[in-house]
């Protein structure tokens, strides 16, 4: 299978603190790859290295075989890497459909002169992206909400709008940073299905940061575990769940077991 993204020995240092320490990551085309790990383990920093926010001090990031570290984020986006954010970052005072239209930016042909003159091909292009943006909103389930300001949308809708904006980039690789954070189990399930759907339908490779193990274990083809900036394990969900290092550093006994423990204590007290 073809490799879409490859990180080789990527390291990122913040004033003495090694946030990402020589991490290797290989993501094959069409995969859903998850990155898990405790808070502060360097997951988001790794994302930022891939999407061009940070330039790693060491190592290479290759996208479809081309080195992309050091490139500005807009160039990275134009190449086909789109992302969402842990704490939703939309253009709050623009309408939802405009948010998506901004996502088409790397693929627009016509500049300010043509916009000033409103040439026919400029108008055609604009019309095209309005239609496409509306279609994308429809696709993520926000049909009819497009003219609302982004900040007026409910929480779940904002998460989806963020994905729609990322999809408007027409990415080959989609980075999702905690897409189910703050969702209830129903919404989480729907999101899980949707992520899989995007992958299958649009043939986009997806890298996921996620805390909800039900999501991660359910949809991932490959899971990488980070701890203190280092990759401590990699493999498919089964392997990860069985990996003792992961359990020790991250998973613990599991929520069900914990819950059981507290309930026992409670009855004990009583």
């Amino acid at each position, binding site marked *: 299978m073809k490799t879409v993204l490859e990180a080789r020995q990527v390291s990122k240092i913040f004033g003495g603190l090694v946030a990402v320490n020589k991490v290797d990551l290989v993501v094959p085309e069409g995969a859903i790859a998850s990155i898990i790990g405790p808070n502060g383990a360097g997951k988001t920093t790794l994302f930022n290295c891939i999407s061009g926010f940070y330039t790693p001090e060491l190592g290479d990031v290759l996208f479809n075989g081309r080195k992309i570290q050091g490139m500005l984020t807009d160039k990275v986006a134009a190449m086909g890497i789109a992302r969402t954010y842990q704490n939703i970052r939309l253009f709050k005072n623009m309408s*939802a459909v405009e948010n998506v239209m*901004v996502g088409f930016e*790397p693929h627009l042909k016509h500049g300010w002169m043509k916009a000033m003159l409103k040439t026919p091909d400029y108008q055609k292009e604009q019309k095209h992206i309005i239609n496409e943006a509306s279609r994308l909103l429809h*696709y993520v389930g*926000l*049909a009819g909400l497009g003219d609302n*300001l982004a900040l007026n949308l409910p929480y779940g809708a904002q998460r989806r709008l963020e994905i729609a904006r990322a999809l408007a980039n027409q990415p080959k690789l989609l980075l999702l940073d905690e897409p189910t954070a703050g969702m209830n189990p129903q*919404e989480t399930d729907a999101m899980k299905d949707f992520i899989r759907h995007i992958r299958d339908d649009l043939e986009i490779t997806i890298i996921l940061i996620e805390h909800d193990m039900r999501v991660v274990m359910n949809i991932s083809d490959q899971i990488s575990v980070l701890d203190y900036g280092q990759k401590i394990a990699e493999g498919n969900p089964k392997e990860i769940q069985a990996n003792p290092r992961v359990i020790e550093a991250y998973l613990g006994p599991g929520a069900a077991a914990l819950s059981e423990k507290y309930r026992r204590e409670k009855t004990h007290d009583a």
Partner: protein
Amino acid sequence: MNKQSIQKSAASGLVFGIIVIFFALIGFTVVFSGLIQKALGQSLGVGQIPSISSFLIFLGLLGIWNGWRASRQDKHETLSVKKVLGRSAIAGLVAGVLVMVYALIVGALNNSGINLRTYLSQLSSESVRFFLFNQTIVVGGLIHVFYSTLMAVIGGFLAVASERSRERVKSTRESIQKWSQDRWLGKLQGNPYVSYVLMGVVLLLLVLLPRTWGAYWNYVMGTVGIYVLLGLGLNIIVGLSGQLVLGYVAFFAIGAYTFALTTSPEPHNLVWNFWIALGVAVLAAALSGILIGLPIMRLRGDYLAIVTLGFGEIIRILLRSDILKDFTMGPRGVRNIAGPTLFGRSFTTDVDFMYLIILAVLLSIFLARRWQESSIGRAWLAISQDETVAQATGVDTQKYKLLALSLGAAFAGLGGALFASRNQFTGPEDHALMVSINVLVLVIVGGMGSIPGVVLGAFALKGLPEILRELESYRLLVFGALLVVMMIIRPEGLWPARRPKLEVPVEQDHEPVPLPATAGGEK
């Protein structure tokens, strides 16, 4: 009456007492009374002290307001006459006593022959006596107490009355609104021709008015027009692309000086054609936008603000400096700048120039709208709201920020060139920091990112001080206060920007809906 209520009333009285004293100290009591007297149609010579009755009206207005404010302490309670009487009386009494104490001190000092004006420039002997109603200090002070209390109580009663009739006023207003909605406004709103008719009327007025309203208003409105140009430009930079630029005057100066130096016989004797020079001025300003922008692309927010402020100051200081004197004429400025010519004829009367400015404004509004509503405007807005994310979404932020700077600068260049041409003179003092601040203020007062807002803001900012000329040396004081009040009561600006409706319905059979369109509650 509980303790809290008494405290609040007393506080209101305190505030109003201080206001009255402040007005007295800055001589506003005399000037405003004079204005009232003039408004009542009585003449008032220069330097003459106005009549006591106009002063009483002035004090009365303040007193009534005091009583009104003191009475309405809580939005939710219903007022009763008893409540109001106590509150307003306390407020009036506190204010009155405070003013009396002031009057006693000032009056006594004045009577003892001390020249208060050595330290407080407005406290002439006459104005102090005027403040005491030309009575002795004790009588004058007591009149203040009595009058302040009386007026406050009246204000309290007015508050009750207005509250009792509020329901009625509200229902009347609603019914009128409903009627107009049904009868004509609603119909008109639906009618696509209305806006054309209005547009026609405005155009007609734009054609007719410069001919009729005289040189002074042509001058004032011309200045307003030039500030509209500046505002449109800065609106692109600050309002759309979100770069806080405090040195906008640099572009204005570059436009003005480029035009001036290429058309004036002194110092270079390049007497270029008006239109060529205009184009060169605009281009020079746009280019300077790019040049200034390039090194500072990484800066954001207040850092950008201070750096651009520095650029503005550098340009101004250089223009007036000795080292560039041979090139820019130093502090003396450039004179004999050309007016517009067309086919060998020159159009330099105020009316012609007004038309030129109107044309420039209309053209600029047209262009600014085009850009704002295009994908470029969208990219700018995205940058202004979250630059990091905009860039990660594929927006070439450097390109767009530079574009915004250079387009904004081009508007400033146009404004500068017209400004220089109209005045036939430009000097370094035309390009001081206050211009940048004024333009920024007009953009925000009008409503960030809103083109009609810019027009309104320019009227408010450049028109208002002219209207306030009646207030003479108080006009900037009043202007400053109005600015604060405006920001408090309407922070979004006079005419906030709206986002256009764009979404088009999608045929249902196109794609399956993969997510239930639920909304996870509200914020």
